[in-house]
Every structure is written in C-alpha cells, then in structure tokens.
C-alpha cells in the first residue's frame, strides 16, 4: 500500500544499541519525497547506523521504519527498493562498468534492450559515457565513485542512500563531485539521504540537515536556519566556526541587556524581541568569527571588547585572527583581505566590535 500523500521515509521512535553503546535513541523523523536530506554528526553519533537501518542492513531494537507508507521493518534489504552508494564504492570486481550498473536492473528482470538504454543514460548523467567495458580496477577513485552512483540511480529507487561517498576523494575532486551530485539530484528528483561528518558539505548540498550526536537528533533545519539559529551548544559548535563564550549573567533594563562575564568584562546591546531575557538569567553566548571585527568609529558605540592579537592566519581572501580577551579567552575573528596583519601586528592591542544582534544566545 503506498499512497501519494505518504512521506518517502518515516522513522518512528527507533532505538538501537550495540551492547552498551547506544546508536539510536527514540529517533523520529519524516523525510519528504524528492528532498535532499543530510544526516550530519561526529563519528559514532549514529548517522550511519540510521542509514543502515533504512537500507535493511541493521534491524532496529524498537520502533518502525516506513518507506512510502509501508512498514519495512521485517523486509530484508533486497526487497526494500533502496539504492545505496557505499563509502568504499563496492563495485563488483569481476564485472565491467556496464554490468555493474546493469546489475540492479537484471535483478528486476528488465529487458535487455531497456537495460542497455537505461545504463547508457545513467552513465551519461555521471559523465562516464564510453567507459562501459572497463573494469573497476582500471578506473580512478573519482570514476569508481560515479559508477557506484550510476548503479544506484539507474534502478530509480524509492530512496537514494549515500554513506559518506566523498570522504575518500581529495579536496578539489570532492568539491567538483558535490556540484555534480546536486545536479544529479536535480535531474532525477530522487529522495536522497546523505551521511557525512563534514558540516561544510552538509550546508552546501542539503534541503534539510539532521544534526545527530550520541544517537539523538539535535536539530532538523534548513541549512540557513541551522547556521543562524542553532538549537543548542552542540549544534552551535559543530556547524560552522563559532566562538563559545563562557557563561554570562544578564542585566535587563530599559530595552537593553548587559551580559556580564565577570571581572568587569561586559557586552551590552539592544534586547531582541525574540529573546525573552530577564535580569538574573544565566546564558551562553556563541558568536561567529565573521561577526567580530576591528572596531572603528563608524559603527558608533556598539558592543566592544579589548584584547591583544595572538595570531594571524592569512588565507588569501580573508584572514583568521585570534585575539586574547580577558575572561573570555582566545576569540577567533574573520576579516576580509589581509590589511589587519599590517595594521595590527601580533602583540598589538585591539578594540573588537561584536555584532551582538547576530549572536546565538542559549539559556543554560
């Protein structure tokens, strides 16, 4: 039974442990048809286990998994109609590229003619046309990657599963493959689940991101929302670079809030409407490096911090500068160009302007 309203994948209250190690704890998630969703988290967070449970290689201890409305918990992998791209590619070494890609179609008893035509289209989509008769060992890592992808998409699966497929590739190839992967998703419209520990990759590819840690979902959001409004300290630190400031006491009066870190180090700014803070609240502030800069007269009397330059890391388009600030420790700021290196060499004092309106404030 599958109906047009059914979500592509529904994970309902799924738990799984390996002995004493909890891989998933009461995980619930709905994945929409055609969306590109990423499971993001550090090693051991449970993202690959979740993927394997959807594919059927692992069975959950409790809870349900539904694919297009149908409960697949008792179905073995070969009946679930999912397509998986493994981290190690897992191409069949005794078959050439054509037969590798054709395998899934042969299992579905598709006619020879149709197989050949669909294989050709799939290879063209991953830009490997003409390489049908090659063996896996004759291909580069990137090419093997594409064959694995073609093999999974040619069967038009209900869900496309990608298990850290780009982690074995070098930087430039990786970026290129990300672009092509997005293209393939756009052209095929397949529901895609992508697993990675690389938050940059997740931000660039996904329609939504599921951040996981220790078997639990931390947050499910669109990339922009995830970056701007992390739900907790873990997500704030994991996604993008951020400065985690020590905890502060709030003093609220006259539409303004003052954060006190102790020892007379404070930051003062306007009280935001979406932030119901009261005097006496204890909060943790997180500030992105691009929201701290050199103070100049132009920005008026915004929140300021005094510190001393510890390091400059020049990156061409921008510079990452580390500044030691009393009580707050080492703060990282990201400034355009390389001027700051000349104007404020290592060891010099600096006034920092902090964009408090962009800061992430989490009660704690």
């Amino acid at each position, binding site marked *: 039974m599958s109906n047009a309203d059914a979500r592509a994948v529904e994970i309902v209250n799924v738990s799984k442990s390996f002995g004493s190690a909890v891989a998933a704890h009461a995980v619930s998630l709905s994945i929409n048809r055609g969306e590109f969703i990423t499971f993001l988290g550090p090693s051991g967070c449970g993202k690959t286990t979740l993927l394997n449970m959807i*594919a059927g*290689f692992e069975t959950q201890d409790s809870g349900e998994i539904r694919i297009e409305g149908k409960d697949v918990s008792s179905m073995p*992998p*070969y009946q679930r109609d999912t397509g*998986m791209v*493994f981290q190690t590619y897992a191409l*069949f*070494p005794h078959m050439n590229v054509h037969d590798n890609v054709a395998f899934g179609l042969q299992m579905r008893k598709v006619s020879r003619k149709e197989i050949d035509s669909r294989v050709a289209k799939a290879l063209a989509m991953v830009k490997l046309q003409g390489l049908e008769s090659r063996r896996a060992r004759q291909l580069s890592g990137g090419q093997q990657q594409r064959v694995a992808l073609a*093999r999974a998409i040619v*069967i038009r699966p209900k869900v496309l599963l990608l298990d850290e497929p780009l982690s074995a590739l070098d930087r430039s190839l990786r970026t290129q493959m990300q672009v092509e992967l997005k293209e393939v998703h756009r052209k095929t419209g397949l529901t895609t689940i992508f697993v990675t520990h690389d938050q940059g990759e997740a931000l660039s590819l996904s329609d939504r991101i599921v951040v996981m840690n220790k078997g639990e979902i931390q947050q499910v959001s669109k990339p922009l929302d995830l970056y701007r409004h992390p739900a907790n300290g873990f997500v704030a630190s994991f996604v993008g670079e951020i400065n985690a400031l020590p905890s502060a006491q709030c003093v609220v009066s006259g539409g303004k809030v003052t954060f006190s870190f102790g020892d007379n180090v404070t930051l003062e700014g306007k009280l935001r409407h979406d932030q119901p803070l009261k005097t006496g609240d204890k909060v943790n502030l997180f500030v992105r490096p691009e929201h701290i800069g050199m103070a100049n007269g132009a920005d008026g009397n915004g929140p300021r911090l005094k510190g001393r330059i510890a390091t400059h890391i020049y990156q061409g388009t921008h510079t990452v500068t580390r500044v030691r600030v009393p009580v707050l420790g080492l703060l990282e700021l990201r400034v355009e160009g390389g001027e700051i290196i000349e104007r404020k060499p290592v060891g010099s004092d600096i006034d920092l302007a902090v964009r408090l309106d962009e800061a992430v404030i989490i009660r704690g």
Partner: protein
Amino acid sequence: MKMDWRALLFWTLISALLVYMTLPAFVVIMASFNPGEVLSFPPKGFSVRWYIKAVTYPDFQIAFRNGIIVAAFASTLALVLGAAVALLVARYKFQGRGLLEAILSAPLIVPHFTTGFGFLLLGAHLDINQTYLIIIIAHVVLVLPFVTRAIHVSLQNVDPNLERAAANLGASPLKSLLRVTVPLMLPGLAGGWLMAAILSLTEFSASLYVTASRTQTLPVAMYNYIREYTDPTIAAISALLIVATTLIMIVANHFLGLRKILAIEPR
C-alpha cells in the same frame, strides 16, 4: 662479482635443501630408463620399455582408472562441503564455531593409517568395504581440512560490502551467492579442487586399508607390485606420477596463482 658470505651461505643451504628434497624423484626418473631388468642406479643405458610395460600393465590401468574416479568424486564432494563450511564460518557468528573449526582440522593431526583403519572398521559394519564409496568417504575426510582452508582464504578476499551491495540492488541471498560470491571465490575453489585431487591420487596410508583388490588406487597397486617384482616398471610408473602431479601444479600456478590458493600470501 663480490658476493657477501652470508648470501653465499644462504644460497648453499637453499640449494642443498632443494637437492635433498628432489633427489629421490631424480633418482627414480633416471632409474626408469635402465634397460636391464634389475632396479639399479645409475642406469646402465637408455630404454623406454618399462614405460610401455607400466602403461600396459592391467593392474596399473585399473588402478589408474580407480584413482581418477575416487579423486573426481572425493574432490568434488570435499569442495562442496568445504565451501559450505567456509561460507558458514566466514559470514555467521554462532556458538560452537571454534569447535567446528577444531573438528575440521582434526584429520591433520590423526595419522592417515589410523583414519584408514577406522574407516575399514566402519566399512565392515556398513558392508561397503568392496566399494568405491568407502574410499571416497575416507579421502573426503582426509582432504577436507586443506580444501576448507584454501576456500576460507579466498573468501576473506571477498569484500563483504559486495554482498551488501548485491542485496541492496535486489539480489536474494541465493542470487547474491551465485552472481557475486562464487565467481569471486572461483580461483580459491579451483585451487582447492586441484589440491584435493592431487592429495587423493597420491594418498597411500589410509587407502591401503580401505581399498580392495578390485578398487585399489594407483599408490596401493604400486606398493603391491614392488612387493613382488623389482624391475624398473615401478620406477617408470613413479616417474609418470611425479611428472603428472608436477604438471598439474605448474598449470594451476600459471592460471590461478598457488600462493593465494595455498594460503601463503593474502591477495
């Protein structure tokens, strides 16, 4: 060319070892060309009459046929059993796994004549002692450890993710076995079969017990011959056996790579 004294010593030892190991074969082959009727070394001439006698001797002809039949059945049976066990042990964790492995290795420790004698008693009990069956059973037991080992090694070189990939693409466990696992195990399977065949063709101690005069294999027939006659026929048939097994090994190495099959080197 200066040679390090250590290298010289090494090569001398290796050569001595090789000579020691191949000397009996060398002597036998040379003695087989002796024209005279007495087994002697070094040969006093050159003649192939004993080869003609060996090949036309009825007892040897029958024994050769018996050997081929027994080897063919025993090897195939051992292959199927060994493959089943190897797959079981490699892919599933179950209780008693270690025990199974120990039982399978047992024939390696027990002397062949003990195994042979045991099967003789068993065969008498089941009244199959005049048949090929008892010989085949005994050979399967003796050969199984080697076959299982060879297949186990070749199986370890098959990435388990490949089976997962096949299942993910829609292959039932049977299809996955036939289309992916077995084709990749083929060198191991072929090598295992060949090794089993050679071991069976040349097996003597156990066969002495379980063969009857009608069903005796070649090594047993040769033993019986030399108890009565001492002419170079025996040398000729021995030489033929040596050459045959050597050729099989050379062919196997060329097409399959003996290093992998004999588990000397993982791929």
